[in-house]
């Protein structure tokens, strides 16, 4: 099914006179607005990180290198045609599951959790699953009638539940919830009926109760702490109390870059990783945090735009899921730091210090770029 408007759009874009730079961008299958948004966030993030890490240039350089690697990963993925990704999706998903099982049986232990696999290089297979799950879900739905039927939904539920369970077992509840979310987003976008969503929402209440028993003690503690942080101000509640003090004392415009006493005098724990948003809030105030949220919104918006523009179901669902999962990241982290949700180990994307997750994120955006720049007529 070929539509004239699409062809026209495609042709006219190619025919338009472009500068060398835009030409290069186009040749590299890069989406300019998306790249700009991501780079702005990353650069902003580097500034915040420099301050949060106690003006540690070595750490900053480390993060910059990781960022570079992630951008390269994004560029490489952007060159892969969507068809290629689609073709390899089932295999990738199965390989991911296999690796997750391997992690549980023979992974490296760090900080009380078994998350890493060491095969020459140390990496977390759960990171790969962040992309593999929405890809698999989208792949499963691409040829099926939408909105999906109940039987299909049940199969998808299993496709999502297996990796989620394996990752929760590590234990890494934060990642497990994000991966489940990325899959669920696909089926919501695919048109699952709102009635069903509501129904599942009601079912989620006993589900949450079941989850409570599944949680580790420290995770239960985090939930209790959220409800009453002052119950144990020097223990479990310390992080939330200190991050709220940091944010609140920042006020409208903040204490100024590198002047945050909460961060620099080490009151705020995990200030350059999960709680970096509080450093931003302390030093740049409401103005700073809203600016960052606006940048995130722009990236998410651009991602959804790309999804809407995509020409096939697989691309649409995948692009939409990647964009909205990014939103889930941002929301969970900022809501956690501001004390709206329990502390779960979710970094602030592109700003928190840390490597693997950044590569995964950028690879995801590479997929968005590939989808957008290599749009073609339906693959018939």
């Amino acid at each position, binding site marked *: 099914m070929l539509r004239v408007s699409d062809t026209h759009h495609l042709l006219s874009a190619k025919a338009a006179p472009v500068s060398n730079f835009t030409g290069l961008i186009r040749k590299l299958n890069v989406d300019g607005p998306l790249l700009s948004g991501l780079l702005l966030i990353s650069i902003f993030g580097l500034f915040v990180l420099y301050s949060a890490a106690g003006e540690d240039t070595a750490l900053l350089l480390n993060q910059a290198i990781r960022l570079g690697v992630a951008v390269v990963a994004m560029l490489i993925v952007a060159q892969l045609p969507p068809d290629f990704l689609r073709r390899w999706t089932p295999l990738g998903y199965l390989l991911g599951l296999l690796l997750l099982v391997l992690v549980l049986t023979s992974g490296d232990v760090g900080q009380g959790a078994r998350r890493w696999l060491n095969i020459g290089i140390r990496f977390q297979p759960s990171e790969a699953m962040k992309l593999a799950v929405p890809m698999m879900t989208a792949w499963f739905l691409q*040829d099926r009638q*939408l909105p999906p039927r109940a039987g299909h939904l049940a199969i998808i539920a299993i496709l999502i539940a297996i990796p989620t369970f394996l990752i929760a077992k590590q234990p890494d509840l934060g990642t497990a919830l994000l991966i489940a979310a990325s899959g669920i987003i696909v089926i919501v976008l695919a048109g699952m009926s709102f009635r069903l969503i509501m129904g599942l929402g009601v079912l989620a209440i006993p589900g949450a109760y079941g989850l409570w028993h599944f949680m580790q003690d420290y995770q239960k503690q985090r939930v209790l702490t959220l409800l009453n942080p002052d119950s144990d101000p020097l223990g479990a509640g310390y992080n939330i109390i200190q991050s709220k003090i940091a944010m609140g004392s*920042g006020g409208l415009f903040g204490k100024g870059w590198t002047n945050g006493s909460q961060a620099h005098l080490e009151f705020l724990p995990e200030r350059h990783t999960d709680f970096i948003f509080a450093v931003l809030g302390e030093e740049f105030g409401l103005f700073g945090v809203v600016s960052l*949220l606006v940048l995130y919104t722009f990236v998410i918006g651009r991602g959804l735009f790309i999804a809407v523009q995509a020409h096939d179901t697989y691309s649409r669902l995948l692009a939409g899921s990647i964009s909205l999962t990014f939103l889930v990241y941002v929301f969970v982290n900022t809501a956690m730091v501001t004390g709206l949700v329990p502390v779960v180990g979710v970094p602030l994307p592109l700003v928190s210090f840390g490597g693997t997750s950044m590569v995964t994120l950028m690879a995801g955006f590479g997929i968005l770029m590939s989808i957008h720049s290599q749009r073609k007529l339906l*693959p018939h």
Partner: protein
Amino acid sequence: MRLLSPIKDHHLERRLFIGRAIFCAVLSVLLLSLVIARLVQLQVFDHELFAEKSQGNRVRIEAVAPIRGLVFDRKGRVIAENLPAYQLELIPEQVDDIDDTLQRLAALNLIESDDIERFKELSRTGQQFKPVTLKFRLSDAEIANFAIQRPRFPGVDFQPRLVRHYPHGQLFSHAVGYVGALNTADVQRLDSGRYAGTSHTGKTGVEASKEDNLHGDAGFRHLITNARGRQVPADSSELLESLPIDENASPGANIYLSLDLDVQKAAFDALAGRRGAVVALDPTNGEILALVSAPSFDPNLFAVGMSNAQYGELRNNPDRPLFNRAVLGTYPPGSTIKPMLSLAALETGATNLTRKTICRGYFQLEGNEHRYRDWKPEGHGPVDLHDAIAQSCDVYFYELSGDLGIDNMHEYLTRFGLGSATGIDLIGERGGIVPSREWKRNNFSDRDNQRWYNGETVIASIGQGFMLATPLQLAVATGALATRGERFQPHMVAAVEDAITGARSITQPKSIANVDIRNEFYWQYVLEAMHDVMQGPRGTARAVGMGAPYEMAGKSGTAQVISIAQDDEYDEDELEERLRDHALFISFAPLDDPKIVVAVIVENGSSGSGVAAPIAKAVMDQYLGFGDATGQ
């Protein structure tokens, strides 16, 4: 070409997707708005609250210990002061290998190897930025030694601190006492607000009894710190200005003692090499002039801190240098109570001025074979009361004891202050014992022991048996003799001086119940007899008193340490030194205008007049202006 499901409608699907995308976008905006609303709440509405909390987070209140008050003698000479001393400190967080560092410091003899475990424990348990004191005072040689080695010891350094110093060493260790590091009991007892920042407290002597005055009040200063409590520089003057105002520590009050350095030294020197005590006081107001217990110790050891080995040596020394014999040591007063009993006997009619006894060297109760010996085996011959005092005839007192009775003895000796604590401004003073029938009933459990026996009255008349008194009590009682019944509570603190204003609060003499003797002549009679002890032709201590440039009165005493079996001759030289009699002496001078009372006890000194009296004389000489010291 893939086979599509026949009902798959791409156009419819796209519209469905767009609808869902819009729905998700709206949801996203709502979620982010929720976060922004929360941020507005925290950063706009609650900003002030959190700004205050953030400020409170970083401002730590640190206590500033007050400077301890000084102690002076009656002429303003320093007895206890605070000197800057260099102490060796280790900051745990700056030391990589604490064990290795301590081992190497021990190898340099800067710390004792016994203490390594203790320091390791302290380094592990304390806050990591807080220094652990390894040695409170470094000698010049140690400072020089360490200064060369310092580069090899990162995290170890010497720091100046004020350390309590007793310039006269052993001289005042029992009177003034010492300060020592706070222990757990101290921490529970003391007001944590006043003692915040304080490391030492008075443990004994005036340092303990006047702790409240000497200590002062802690001040506070505000520090900007990081989360681990370490001080960090203020990053803005604004912040510094916003800090609450620091409160200065108020220094402790200075104490002026009634003690006289020269008299104290004379007593200390005279007691050198002995175990015993000297208490000298002014009978007209109760001021203590000298208070010495021997052997002594260096109180600086406690102020500076000593090794376990050093402390063990002090504790386990059989001569008990830490024991304050002057106020805690209780001894049988021996014949020193004879002047008091004489007054009691005259007053109650148990004897009179003309009664004479033929002393044959022993006394027997009717119907009893037991011989109560006189100290002079061949006897004193015929003696009246005057002779009985001057020559210290025991038999005279044995004989009148039956007429006087134990309860009268108890009554009069109690009036002189024996048998109960004097109330001196020191902690832990002992009260001694003046027995009576009632006392025996109350202090023994089995019936036979609760009875009072006549033989016990006999030996009580020469200050033996159950009777016990401290040297201080003897001095106070002697004061009442010297003043003919006027009594004052003894005290060592003459004045308390505010360290800032210099205002002095002077201790007023505190009169206590007088010893009333109806016939004034009895005083005259007994005091003259005491005078003759020193300066009469047959006085027991005439060898000491003769030739004194002033008129003195005294009374010797010996107190048995063990009882001698009947009819056994005993040879002093063969007796173990520690089984010899204690030598006692009480005295005052001048006779008609008493200015000083001295009580002396020399443990196992054998002879009151031969050993204890010369010590008393040396102290008096010094005080009355005939001594060696010129009083610098």
